[in-house]
Structures are given as structure tokens and as C-alpha cells.
């Protein structure tokens, strides 16, 4: 069983899929969930320091996209308090600072008019996202403080030039300035936007219908208001005889950690970024355990490092312990809470395997993987995810590819839907944790 640890205002624990496993002659897979949950501290929140980066390329004039963007940004400006800072940057072939944070403080009405006139800016029609990021980062740096929540919100609808540079800019700011990304339509590179968000532990949003842009801005803002910790990262020391098979972020969004490998000291380091209060932030490790004689064994020691408001450099620890036994009767059922997340992570993995299979022309394999993903969401009772996957599978069967506009839209919708962790209701969570 896990050893719960409460440090200040954070709960951090390690939960194994099983507390007891059979001493066997064969390697055995065990799922280990490392979950942190900061508690809200008396309504205190971090003041914001935002850089809003808006795509103003030619395609943004379609579908009234710019209208919805300016509605969303206007709403956001109205929500900012006196302690918050925000700068707004537009980019196309060039970048233009629409409003600095000083201008926004001095005259909100004037800034709103400038946002409304964003369609008139003469900055060309291309998609130079890196230039927009650089200009916004320079603005955010002016008000940078570890006691603020420093973040870029990047909205784009196109394939940018210099993708590598965008990713490097996001990565370089890790632990300082996080980077949420919003992709509109089907032309943008979702892999790039996801990776930029993952590099800093922020959010990725897919926007199919431009009319939902204001809603997504407001949910991102709610999340920002709720952030309790910044610069979180986890270090996991694996015991001898415990190998890492796969590592995933399991909540609040689901994605694989790329190139997650323990170092020579068997230490695995994972970046988590900003962490919201009263929201589970977790990592799921798929471990391969070597045979052992009966007894209690510590599989891993996990440390969670983070900065709390005006208290940087905090750490919470949790140990993962299991019992090896020869008694079949002692091996109970798997932990339902952990297995629910195993299911969700596995289904998201099947979807991306299906995507890869389809991309390499193996439509049979892709269809089979999607079929199994659908069985999974049905078992979990995730109606929305089931519908989305069925639409994707139908589209794929019809066109035998993922090239069509309809298929691409279904694919992006499926990715975004499966990426969002569906947490079990608090009551069943409580039971699982008490087991």
C-alpha cells in the first residue's frame, strides 16, 4: 500500500494497481500511479502575467474567426484584476504588439478598440508564430516574477514556419513561463501545439467551431485562477529489478512522456509545470518487475518538487511498496481507481497507434485498434468519447485514409476528447484511496 504524505497544502501519494503480487518466475507488469493534489489555500491565487499571442494570418478572416477571437480577448481583459498583467501580440509575416501590459492598465477601452481593429493591422498574411512568441515573451519578461503565474496563450489556425524554433522557445522557458496552445480548424500542426503545451505542463485545446473560442478562453482563465503550484516536477527513483516500460501524464490531461528514461542512478525526471488546486495531477508508470522471493519491497521513491506562492523549492515524498507472496489468496483485486486511469491512458494510446497505422497505410490494423478503443470507452461508459471514435472509424472505413477534411476533423476531435482525463466521482475516489 502507498504511504500518503501531506506536506503543507499538498496531498501526494503512490498507488499501485496491486498491493500484493505473486512471487513468480516471470516478469510481471505493475501500474504505478503517482498523484498530487494541492488544496486551495483560503481563496488566495497567483496574480497573472499573460502574453496573449494571436494568429492574424489570412485564414483567420474565414468563418468569422477574428470576430470570435476579439470577443474572447475582450472578455479576458474584463476579467483581469488590478494585480494581473497581460500583453497582446498579433502575428502574420511579422509580429506586432497590440497592447503592452502598461497600456492595458492605463486604458482598457483603448486596448479593446485596438483588438477590434486587429483585422486592419498591416503585418502580411503568413504564419510566423515564432516571431509572435518572441514578442510576447519579451513583454512577459517585463513583469516576470516567480510569485506570478507567467504564461503564454497562443492561438493559431495554420501551419507555422520554423516549428523547431517555436518548440525550443517553449522548452527554454520551462519552469518559468508556461505555454497553453489553442488550435483552430484543421490546418495547424496539432503535434507541435501539443508538444509545446506538454513541454511546459500547460494545456492544449482543439477548436473545431470558432464560436467556441470565447468559451475556451474563459475555461483556460478559470484554470489559471485555480493554479496553486508552479514549476512542478517529479523525480522517481526505481529500485533494482524494476524497469520502466512506459510513462504517461494521466491527469488532468493524458499524454505520453517522450524520451522518459531513468538515468544511470535509476532516477526518472518528469516535468509537470503548473498544477491546479483541488485537481488531481498524476503520472502513470508502467513498470516491469523481476521475479523476487516473498516479502515487502519498495519499488520506487517519488519526490515532487514545486514552487508554492512565496515559498519556492518545496518537496513532497511518497513511497511505492508492494508485497511479494506465494499465497494466491493474498492477491486481492486490482485497485479500481488506478485501473480506471490505466483504461483511459490505454485507450488514448490505442487511438494514437491507430493514427500511426493509418498513416503508414495499414488500415486493417488502424480499424482494429480503433475498434478496441471503442470497446474500451464503452466499458467505461464514456459516451462522448465513444461517439467521437465511432465517427472517426466510420470516416476511415469510408475513405480508407485520414486525408479528407472530415477525417482530419474527426481525428483532431478524438485526440482532444481522449486527452482530457475523466475523473471518477469523488465518492468512489475516496473509497479507492482508503482501501
Amino acid at each position, binding site marked *: 500500500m502507498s504511504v500518503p504524505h501531506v506536506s503543507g497544502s499538498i496531498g501526494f501519494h503512490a498507488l499501485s494497481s496491486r498491493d500484493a503480487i505473486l512471487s*513468480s*518466475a516471470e516478469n510481471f*507488469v505493475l501500474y504505478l500511479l503517482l498523484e498530487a493534489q494541492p488544496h486551495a489555500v483560503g481563496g488566495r491565487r497567483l496574480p497573472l502575467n499573460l502574453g496573449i499571442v494571436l494568429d492574424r494570418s489570412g485564414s483567420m478572416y474565414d468563418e468569422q474567426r477574428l470576430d470570435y477571437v476579439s470577443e474572447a480577448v475582450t472578455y479576458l481583459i474584463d476579467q483581469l484584476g488590478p494585480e494581473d498583467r497581460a500583453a497582446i501580440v498579433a502575428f502574420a509575416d511579422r509580429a506586432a504588439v497590440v497592447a503592452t501590459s502598461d497600456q492595458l492598465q492605463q486604458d482598457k477601452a483603448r486596448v479593446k478598440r485596438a483588438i477590434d481593429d486587429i483585422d486592419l493591422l498591416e503585418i502580411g498574411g503568413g504564419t510566423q508564430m515564432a516571431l509572435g512568441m518572441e514578442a510576447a515573451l519579451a513583454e512577459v519578461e517585463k513583469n516576470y516574477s516567480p510569485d506570478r503565474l507567467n504564461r503564454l496563450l497562443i492561438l493559431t489556425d495554420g501551419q507555422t514556419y520554423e516549428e523547431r524554433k517555436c518548440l525550443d522557445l517553449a522548452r527554454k522557458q520551462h519552469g518559468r513561463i508556461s505555454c497553453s496552445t489553442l488550435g483552430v480548424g484543421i490546418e495547424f500542426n496539432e503535434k507541435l501545439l501539443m508538444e509545446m503545451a506538454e513541454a511546459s505542463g500547460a494545456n492544449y485545446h482543439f477548436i473545431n467551431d470558432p464560436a467556441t473560442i470565447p468559451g475556451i478562453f474563459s475555461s483556460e482563465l478559470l484554470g489559471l485562477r485555480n493554479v496553486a503550484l508552479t514549476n512542478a516536477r517529479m523525480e522517481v527513483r526505481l529500485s533494482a*529489478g524494476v524497469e520502466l516500460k512506459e510513462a504517461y501524464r494521466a491527469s488532468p490531461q493524458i499524454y505520453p512522456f517522450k524520451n522518459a528514461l531513468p538515468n544511470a542512478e535509476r532516477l526518472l525526471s518528469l516535468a509537470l509545470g503548473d498544477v491546479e488546486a483541488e485537481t488531481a495531477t498524476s503520472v502513470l508508470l508502467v513498470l516491469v518487475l523481476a*521475479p523476487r522471493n516473498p516479502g515487502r519491497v519498495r519499488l520506487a521513491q517519488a519526490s515532487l518538487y514545486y514552487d508554492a506562492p512565496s515559498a519556492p523549492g518545496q518537496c513532497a515524498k511518497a513511497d511505492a511498496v508492494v508485497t511479494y507472496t506465494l499465497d494466491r489468496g493474498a492477491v486481492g483485486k486490482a485497485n479500481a481507481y488506478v485501473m480506471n486511469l490505466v483504461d483511459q491512458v490505454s485507450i488514448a494510446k490505442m487511438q494514437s*497507434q491507430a493514427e500511426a497505422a493509418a498513416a503508414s497505410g495499414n488500415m486493417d490494423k488502424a480499424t*482494429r485498434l480503433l475498434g478496441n478503443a471503442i470497446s*474500451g470507452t464503452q466499458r467505461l461508459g464514456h459516451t462522448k468519447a465513444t461517439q467521437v471514435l465511432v465517427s472517426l472509424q466510420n470516416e476511415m472505413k469510408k475513405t480508407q485514409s485520414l486525408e479528407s477534411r472530415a477525417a482530419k476533423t474527426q481525428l483532431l476531435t478524438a485526440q482532444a476528447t481522449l486527452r482530457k482525463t475523466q475523473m471518477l466521482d469523488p465518492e468512489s475516489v475516496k473509497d479507492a484511496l482508503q482501501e
Partner: protein
Amino acid sequence: MIQCAECGHDNMDGLEYCDACGAKLPATAAPTPEPLPVDAPPDVAVAVSAPADTPPVPVSLNAVALKAKLTITRGGTVGKEFVLQTGDNLVGRWDPDSGAFPEVDLELDDPEARISRKHALLRVAERLSLEDIGSLNGTFVNRGKRLDPGSPVTLTDGDEIIIGKTFFKVSVS
């Protein structure tokens, strides 16, 4: 190992979903408890599976196959005989959960479970050969050095083999 019923992929015990096709795997077949030798290093990962692509040994019908049998000489029911059939004979312990249905089933002769469920293969063709297929406690011929898994050696009449902790005499005619 759990073999996926849909695509045949071999998955590690404890996995929930097939690594290859995503099918839900049957509730983990609880592996047979198998204590390790006391002196076994606790942190050695041991892969215990027959290579999936081991080609079946072609058995020529024209060639006169050998007749071969094993007799337990120590570490089990001494004197018990196993007559080998032509072709492959799996040596191991019966375990339907993991799909181990050995021809030479040592379940009853191995109370300490020193023999892996899929331990070794004896092939009867023009010659008799023995191959360790990734056992935990090893396979030995004439008390020599442990056989390398996946590398068959030829046996002749009168050889002594050790499988786990059970000793056999080989008779070939």
C-alpha cells in the same frame, strides 16, 4: 506471458491491454508461485519465454526417427519414464493459464517448482536435441555449463541431463 486472443501477440503478465492491437487481455492469469533458489540474486530480470518465431523442426517422414526416452534418476519420482514422441517435446509444468501443455510434464515431480512452465524443448528427429527456451533455473548436460537459451545441443544415449533440480538419464535407440 499472456497471448492475445485477437492477434496472437505475446504480452507480459499483468498487462491490461494487448501492446499490439489494444484488445483487452484476460484477467491476468495468476502466475504459478515459483520460489526462487535461495541464492538467486533478487534483482535479476529473467525473461521466461520461448522465442515466438522458433521454427518448427521439419520432421522427415522418410528418415527413421529415433526412439528416445528419459528416466528420472534424482530429484523426483526416481525411475519414472517419459517416452518422447517424434518432433518437439516441451519440458515444463502443466499450466493452462499460461498455455503451457508440456509433453514432458514435471508438475508432480517438482514440488519446489524449480522447473519453469516452459523450460526446454527436446526434439526427436534423426538426432535427439535439447534446447533451453529461457528457463529460470537452467538446463545442464553431463554436469557441464548451463545451456545458452535458444542454442540446441545434441544428446546421445547415456547422457545425463538436469532440468531445474531434477536429474534424468537419456536413452536413445
